[in-house]
Structure formats: C-alpha cells, structure tokens
C-alpha cells in the first residue's frame, strides 16, 4: 500500500499534474531555453535538482517555519540551491551551453513550479514523499521541455541534438525565434486540451449508455 502511494507521488508529476501542459506553470524558461533539445535538457536538469533539494530541506524544517513568514523562508532556501547549481554548471558544463541559458539559470529562483510545490506539498508532507514529488514534477517538466524543444529544433534549424534531420528540409528560422515559441506552445496546449475534452466526452457517453 505504502509503496503504491510512493509510486503515485512520483508519477503524478509526469501526467496528471504535468507542470507545463496541465498546470501551465514555469512558462518563461520553457519558452526561452527551448531553442534546442540540449538547452532544454540542461534547464530541466538544473530545475529538477533545485526542486528536489528545496522540497527536501523545506519538508525537514517545516515545523520550525512560522506560517506568516514562510514565503521569504522558501525563497532563501531556493536561492541558496540556485546559487549552488549555477556555480556547479559553470564548473562542469561547456561554456557555450551556459551562455545560451544565460540569465535563466539565476531566474530558476522565481520559477513558479518550485514555489508552488514548496507551498502546497513540501510544507505539509514528510521528507521522503516531498523528494519523490519534486523528482516527479521535475521529470515531468524536463520531458515537456524536451517535447517543445525537439519540435522547435527540428522545425527551426532542421536538426535534432545537433544532427541534421533531412537534407532537403529548408529550416524556418522563425520557429527558434520568439514568435515560434509562443505558437508551438499554444498549439501544444490546444492539443492536450482537445484530448482531455474528447476523453470526458467519451466517458459522458458511456455513462449515458449505462443509464
């Protein structure tokens, strides 16, 4: 029973509460860094690290944090981990990757997903469950970043992970600029909405048949 619950804490972040497509949180970095799959993966990894660590620390110290000043406390914990991840990335990742992520690494500190999980999950639950929750949502976000960035990279520069997709394809560079990002995300959100609507319509029909 307990194992099943743990599994659920982990997987709910990928589908049921997918941060980008269901909750529509963390939009700014999702659009800015998804020009190539590599950038998307690096951003997702950094945010997942911060999410897991801050969830863990906050759920450990949750009984010492007074309700009134919880938000400043969360911000300080998150900012500490963001500083850590920024220094780590500068030390171990190629400089051009860091340059293309730019200010969006320090901006993880104001990423709504991390604040939202700190407030609505880690502040109320045990450390182990909070770590699983953070890992699940982080993974869900990383996967959705990969989806958006692979569409944009294929359409915008004709490559995937830097490899050419097709010789004859003429890339439409508007897709890796700002307008492409908005339109791709808009259409993807529309697609997921359409699937949800179709599913609920089907279940409505099934209920009506049973009656």
């Amino acid at each position, binding site marked *: 029973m307990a194992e099943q619950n743990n599994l659920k804490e982990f997987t709910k972040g990928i589908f049921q509460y997918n941060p980008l497509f269901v909750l529509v949180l963390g939009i*700014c970095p999702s659009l800015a860094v998804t020009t190539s799959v590599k950038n998307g993966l690096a951003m997702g990894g950094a945010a997942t690290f911060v999410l897991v660590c801050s969830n863990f620390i906050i759920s450990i110290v949750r009984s010492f944090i007074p309700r009134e000043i919880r938000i*400043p406390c969360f*911000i300080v914990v998150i900012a500490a981990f963001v500083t850590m991840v920024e220094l780590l990335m500068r030390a171990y990742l190629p400089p051009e990757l860091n340059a293309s992520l730019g200010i969006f690494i*320090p*901006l993880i500190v*104001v990423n709504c997903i991390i604040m939202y999980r700190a407030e609505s999950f880690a502040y109320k639950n045990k450390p182990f469950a909070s770590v699983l929750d953070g890992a699940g949502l982080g993974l869900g976000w990383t996967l959705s970043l990969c989806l958006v960035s692979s569409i944009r990279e294929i359409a915008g520069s004709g490559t995937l992970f830097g490899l050419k997709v097709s010789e004859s394809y003429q890339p439409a560079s508007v897709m890796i600029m*700002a307008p492409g*990002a908005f339109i791709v995300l*808009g259409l993807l959100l529309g697609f997921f909405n359409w699937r949800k609507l179709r599913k609920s319509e089907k279940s409505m029909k099934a209920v009506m048949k049973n009656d």
Partner: protein
Amino acid sequence: MIKEIALIIVSVVFVNNFVLAKFLGLCPFLGVSQKTSSAIGMGAAVTFVMTLSSAITWIVYNFVLLPGDANIIAKIFPSIRELGLIEVLKTISYILVIATLVQLVEMMLRKMVPALYESLGIYLPLITTNCAVLGVALLNTTDSPKHLGFLQATVQGFGAGIGFMVAMLLMSGIRERLALVNIPPSLRGVPIAFICTGLMALAFLGFSGMVQ
C-alpha cells in the same frame, strides 16, 4: 546624454520587449490581461517596482557585491576586497531587495487605491516572483554586456516596465475582443492567448535591428 537615454527606452520598449522578445514576466502577462483597467494597474505597479529595484540593485551590485575599493563590506573585512560577494550573494540579495519593495507597493496600494488592490488580487504579491523584475536587475548588472551607469540602469528598468505595460495593454485589448468570438473549445483560454502573443511577437520582430 538625452539621445542615449532615448535609445535605451526605444530599445527595451520595442526592440527587446521583455515579454515578446525575451520571454520574461509571462505569468502576470497571461493572468491579468483579461481587462484593460487591471492591465494598466498591473503595468504601473510593475513599472514602479522595476524602476526602484533597478536603482537599488545597481547600488547593491556596485558597493556591496563587486570586488574593489568601493566595496563597503571590504572596509570591515579586508579579505572581501579581492573576491567580492558577487558569486555567492547575487541571487539572494537581489530577490530580497525585490521582495521588500513589493511589500512596500502592496501597503501603499491597499491604503491609497483599494479598488486596484482588489482587482490585482493574487498577482500583486506575485510581482516578487515575476521573472521580469529579477531579470531586469540581472541584465542591468551581472549579465550586462558593458558596465552601465546608475542613470542608464534606472532608465533601462523604467523602460522595461513601460514595455511590459505596452504588451499587456495590447494583449488586454485583443482578449476583450476574443471573449466575443466563437473559438474552437479546445483552444479557449490560455492556448489562444499564446497564439495571439505569438502573432504580436511576430509583429514586434519588425522592430529588430533598429537599435543595437
């Protein structure tokens, strides 16, 4: 001097618009752009916070974080003169400055314009976590291609706020019309807002290359 300031303002309002070209501050942009009146109010609040926070973070950056003789903390702890605090304290000090300012704006608005305070709702305290505010602070100081002066940094913060307000105003005008149109059910709400933003960004792309 005036020419330089005008160039900075044109650059951040049109060419490098924070919302449409740099993807900063999208949450309040989508959340509060339903009505024109609240879009103006939110834009004004963000502009105020951005201008002040640009000024204060510039002072913090130059006199507390950067290594060198101007560092105030180095006068007490001489070892800091060499290294500065820029690597470790950048994010935390900026976010604390912004959080304090937002609290100040919230108290002022609640006292002086209660109607606006009500209509902004949850988005007012959320200016703290608006990436545009922290973004302009970072772009003015650590991530700026060249060292900006105090006046330039403040003007850039003000201009970024105005650019945010312009984008919100345009968007709220579009969304007020969209409310009356028959849209396919799966695109209603956020998806169509994104697609409209994309088209606006396409239009703003026309300004690119005007100012370096």
